[in-house]
């Protein structure tokens, strides 16, 4: 008996990072008092008309480009008609037949996931349900969203989660969306079907109201089991909307699709076609940063380990600092060590690449020791002072003057007659011991290489 294979597609709604709503100048904010960010337009009062936020269009194009989509120079807004108290006009302005971007793809763990479409639409209001009534707050009404729809290219719940994590990272990295799930800025609605036959899809169901990646994974696993159970019992899966309970880990049918509304889509007469010129698309393209995946590969080619490359590339702050420093100090391994160890242990402080590079240069030239460098970095974070100034103030400069060092070496040899005798007899492993003693005596300011050289020579003399 062959196995059932799941086929999964995902719809994501992501909130665009704008100051104002999609069709009016009301502020987009989180956690404000109810109905304080509302005007006649997002309240749908009689007589209002929408006017389109340019930034939202820019971010939608950016999302399309980041997902390798074709950007359409002409797209059309449409009305999706249905009644719900949180929908103030009785229709939602969205894009239907002619979305702004289509036919994209991204790589997720080496597998290509095709992106069917990206389109702009407006958010509905928020309702709070009390025991006897529902309360409606229109602050969210009209907040700009993009909907990102994949082709059914995902074959496991784990892959679905991996896709979502990659997508979330891209949106955050490119400053398209903060994509915080807990704030409903990134919402996932997977659809799923199972089938035994190669090339034949089963009836799909849509899973709604998922608030975490864990819920996505568990709900899909549960839904696969539910659908297989139905098929094994010789019955048919019905098209439906599925809900998932995090408490029980079970999915259930919320409503059957056949009763679904007829949305009566038609072109929004209040908005002429959206034209974006090629030049603007090119300008937006130029603002795209490199995506984490591509960055990681680049860092590996610079000689970083896979693990290190992954850590740096996954943070936009760390990777841009890394690259800025590299422009000044072209020592990828050295710079990556500083970023991975010291910068991260300081919690990723806001530090200028120029100062950071200056400090690394001082270490590399032997002006200060590695330990002193770490101290300089910590001090820079606290005081924002220049590395040179810190070195001076704290007297961290390395002693590399041979004469001075030789004097100290002699002192140390005198202080440790036993070891000194053994060294003279050729016990080379004691070089390390003496270097340590010199470092101790100089409070770490001696240049260990130079010290080591002097002691070796001393040993050879005998």
């Amino acid at each position, binding site marked *: 008996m062959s196995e059932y294979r799941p086929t999964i597609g995902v719809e994501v709604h992501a909130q665009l990072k704008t100051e104002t709503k999609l069709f009016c100048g009301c502020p987009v904010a989180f956690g404000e008092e109810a109905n304080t960010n509302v005007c006649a337009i997002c309240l749908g009062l009689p007589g209002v008309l929408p006017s389109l936020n340019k930034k939202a269009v820019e971010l939608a194009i950016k999302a399309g480009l980041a997902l390798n989509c074709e950007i359409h120079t002409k797209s059309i807004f449409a009305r999706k008609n249905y009644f719900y108290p949180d929908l103030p006009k009785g229709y939602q302005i969205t894009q239907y037949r002619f979305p702004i971007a289509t036919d994209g793809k991204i790589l997720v763990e080496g597998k290509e996931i095709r992106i069917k479409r990206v389109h702009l639409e407006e958010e509905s209001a928020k309702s709070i349900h009390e025991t006897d009534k529902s309360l409606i707050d229109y602050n969210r009404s009209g907040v700009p969203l993009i909907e990102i729809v994949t082709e059914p290219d995902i074959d496991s719940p784990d892959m679905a989660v991996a896709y979502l994590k990659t997508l979330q990272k891209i949106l955050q990295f490119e400053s398209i969306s903060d994509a915080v799930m807990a704030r409903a800025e990134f919402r996932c609605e997977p659809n799923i079907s199972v089938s035994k036959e190669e090339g034949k899809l089963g009836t799909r169901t849509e899973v709604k109201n998922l608030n975490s990646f864990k819920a996505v994974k568990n709900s899909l696993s549960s839904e696969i089991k539910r659908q297989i159970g139905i098929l094994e019992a010789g019955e048919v899966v019905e098209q439906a909307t599925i809900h998932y309970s995090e408490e029980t880990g079970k999915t259930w049918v919320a409503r059957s699709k056949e009763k679904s509304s007829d949305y009566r889509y038609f*072109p929004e007469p209040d908005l*002429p*076609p959206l034209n974006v010129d090629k030049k603007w698309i090119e300008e937006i393209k130029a603002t795209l940063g490199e995506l984490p995946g591509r960055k990681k590969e680049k860092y590996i080619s610079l000689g970083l380990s896979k693990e290190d490359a992954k850590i740096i590339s996954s943070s936009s702050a760390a990777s841009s600092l890394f690259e800025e420093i590299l422009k000044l100090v072209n020592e990828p391994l050295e710079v990556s060590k500083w970023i991975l160890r010291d910068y991260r242990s300081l919690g990723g402080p806001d530090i200028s690449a120029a100062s950071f590079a200056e400090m690394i240069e001082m270490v590399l030239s032997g002006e200060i020791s590695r330990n002193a460098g770490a101290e300089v970095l910590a001090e820079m974070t606290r005081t924002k002072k220049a590395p040179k100034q810190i070195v001076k103030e704290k007297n961290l400069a390395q002693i590399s003057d041979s004469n001075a060092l030789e004097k100290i070496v002699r002192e140390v040899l005198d202080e440790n007659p036993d070891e000194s005798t053994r060294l003279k007899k050729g016990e080379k492993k004691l070089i390390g011991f003496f270097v340590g003693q010199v470092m101790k005596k100089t409070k770490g300011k001696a240049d260990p290489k130079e010290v080591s050289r002097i002691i070796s020579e001393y040993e050879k003399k005998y």
Partner: protein
Amino acid sequence: MKEVDIKHLSKLANIELEREEEKKLQEDLNKIIKHIRQIQEVEVRQTPNTTHLSVEALPFRDDKKEKPLSVKEVLSNTKEQYKNHFTINRMINEDNT
């Protein structure tokens, strides 16, 4: 021509109709739809559906904040309110989206 399903339409349009009213409207609707069916006679060349006659491009608004209405103004046209929210019958379990 088959009769239009007025029950379905009134549900989609969210208008509750009383029995008598429904009967009368059913007749009217049949008449109107018979009348507008005339457009089937016109030969049309298929042109791309854009529905906008204007040749001018959609203008943009800059992403600049404007002052919203005061909460008092927002709620000024309804008595059905509670703690600065609009209120309606409890919406849960009544999914129609």
